[in-house]
């Protein structure tokens, strides 16, 4: 039996009944990784010894009758969420030798739930990118077509889940980095409300936008992981002190009476016809099951990319100032003087996209330009947020495509930053507004590449997202399809 194909909840049942052993399961995943990762290249670091120890421990506890939610479940983690003692590269030469002396809060919680960590997953350098091509450790390939990108920046996470190299994963999302790769790899990805999940131990990109979230094979697994990782953390002052519901209670096949808004700005002339058709079919399905469909408007949607590409690089330029070759990470051999050492270290340690964004952010924050760029963008952010507040006053959720196209070819947009930035056009405004959104599989292109449906909800109402996503999943079979790899 191919255990690696199963979901977290299916594996959990088999482990609990002791039909399978936790150690065999972990070994099964390593066999799978060995077979497919030379093609897919999801992993930067594989932690086989640690994982086997964790699996053996889980096995003992299962035999003792312990019933933790993830006991013996093999997960893999985006390489910017710190696991104590395991190299954390952020996809960058700058951190290629960095070993965190602590666990991120989400890792601590997963560990306490009995999870097994198989390794760390590839990503765009410092999460800056939409294709996983900017990684210092080479590209990840989309399991559905090895010539195409897996999306990004959590491309390793989405590809690993799609290629059955782990049972589930965590990614991070600053402008679409969980949802867009989930869409392109045909898996489920949730960006929680800003403040729902602690960011402690997540290497910072843009602190007012970053959130950690699950990437899984189905919606049930998303609910299971959300139950574990959510909640207030004293180590992250921006994590919200709001009660965490049991998200598995929202796994209900019922959207009767649900008010669903369709933002007209997301369906425009010239959009990809296959994406449009799949999403419109999805809307029809919700209608058939009793949801009430309304046309809504997000009038400032067109300004989201411009707003984001001021705010995110500005915050990034500030956050990445810490990489100076002094306390940790890469340091140049050129050590004539301190300033020269800083500049050479940063020149050698960062890749082109990261430098481009540091330059952009530094410019936007520099004397004489702050008001024109940064302050202006923060004001437009208010308008974008208000659009969502208004639309979600009259609707429970909004439906849009996750990405404007299915996965594109490796190299196609690599040296064209604006084209690359536009591939996040449907996801970026959600981070600016801070609301939660989930991407679920809703179809395939003629070439057999997955298409994602984005469901957007109210602040701290992931429950309705999960209910709507689960209903869609129960009445379609896209999530059961696997790439031939």
């Amino acid at each position: 039996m191919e255990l690696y194909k199963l979901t977290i909840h299916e594996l959990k049942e088999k482990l609990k009944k002791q039909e399978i052993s936790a150690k065999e399961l972990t070994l099964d995943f390593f066999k799978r990784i060995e077979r497919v990762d030379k093609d897919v290249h999801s992993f930067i670091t594989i932690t086989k010894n640690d994982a086997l120890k964790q699996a053996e421990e889980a096995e003992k506890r299962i035999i003792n009758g312990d019933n933790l939610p993830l006991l013996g479940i093999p997960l893999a983690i985006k390489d910017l969420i710190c696991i104590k003692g395991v190299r954390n590269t952020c996809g960058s030469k700058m951190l290629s030798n960095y070993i965190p002396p602590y666990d991120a809060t989400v890792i601590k919680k997963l560990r306490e739930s009995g999870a097994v960590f198989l390794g760390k997953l590839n990503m765009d350098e410092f999460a800056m990118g939409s294709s996983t091509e900017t990684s210092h450790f080479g590209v990840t390939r989309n399991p559905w077509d090895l010539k195409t990108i897996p999306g990004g920046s959590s491309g390793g996470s989405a590809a690993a889940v799609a290629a059955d190299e782990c049972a589930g994963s965590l990614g991070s999302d600053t402008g679409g980095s969980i949802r867009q790769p989930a869409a392109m790899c045909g898996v489920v990805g949730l960006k929680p409300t800003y403040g729902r999940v602690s960011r402690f131990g997540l290497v910072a990109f843009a602190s007012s936008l970053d959130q950690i979230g699950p990437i899984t094979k189905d919606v049930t697994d998303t609910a299971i992981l959300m139950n574990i990782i959510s909640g207030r953390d004293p180590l992250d002052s921006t994590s919200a002190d709001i009660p965490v519901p049991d998200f598995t209670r929202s796994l209900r096949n019922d959207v009767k009476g649900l008010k669903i808004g369709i933002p007209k700005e997301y369906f425009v002339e010239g959009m990809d016809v296959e994406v449009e058709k799949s999403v419109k079919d999805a809307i029809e399905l919700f209608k058939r099951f009793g949801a009430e469909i309304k046309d809504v408007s997000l009038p400032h949607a067109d300004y989201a990319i411009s707003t984001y590409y001021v705010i995110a690089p500005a915050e990034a330029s500030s956050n990445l100032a810490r990489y100076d070759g002094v306390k940790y990470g890469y340091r140049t051999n050129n050590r004539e003087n301190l300033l020269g050492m800083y500049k050479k270290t940063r020149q050698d340690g960062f890749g082109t996209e990261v430098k481009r964004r540091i330059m952009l952010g530094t410019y936007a924050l520099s004397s004489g330009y702050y008001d024109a760029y940064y302050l202006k963008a923060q004001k437009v952010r208010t308008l974008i947020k208000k659009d969502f507040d208004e639309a979600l006053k009259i609707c429970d959720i909004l439906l849009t495509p996750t990405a404007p196209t299915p996965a594109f070819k490796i190299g196609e947009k690599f040296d064209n930053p604006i084209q690359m930035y536009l591939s996040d056009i449907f996801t970026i405004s959600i981070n600016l507004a801070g609301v939660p959104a989930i991407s679920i599989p809703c179809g395939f292109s003629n070439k057999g590449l997955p298409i994602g449906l984005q469901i957007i909800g109210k602040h701290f109402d992931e429950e309705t997202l999960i209910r709507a996503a689960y209903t869609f999943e129960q009445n379609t079979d896209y999530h059961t399809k696997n790439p031939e790899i």
Partner: protein
Amino acid sequence: MKLSIKEVEHVAELARLELSDEEKNKFVHQLSNILTHIEKLNQLDTSNIEPTSHVLPLKNIFRDDVTQISFQESNSLENAPDKDKGYYKVPKIIEEA
């Protein structure tokens, strides 16, 4: 917005990046294009709009001022590229008289 090479060099200096000539030339062009795209924001009148720096209505978050366990010196230094006697070591910054 068209940037000059001089402006790119100035920003690189602020960002502590020693860019190559090739990168400078590339960035002059690419950053100018991105900034032109961003100027779209000027179409909007925002004179009466408050800026949003953060989406949650959070004020200062305080905790009681009690001692907690923190990293040992050895933990904090274990990733240092260069260290000496419990300190981070950097190139000399004070010139001899």
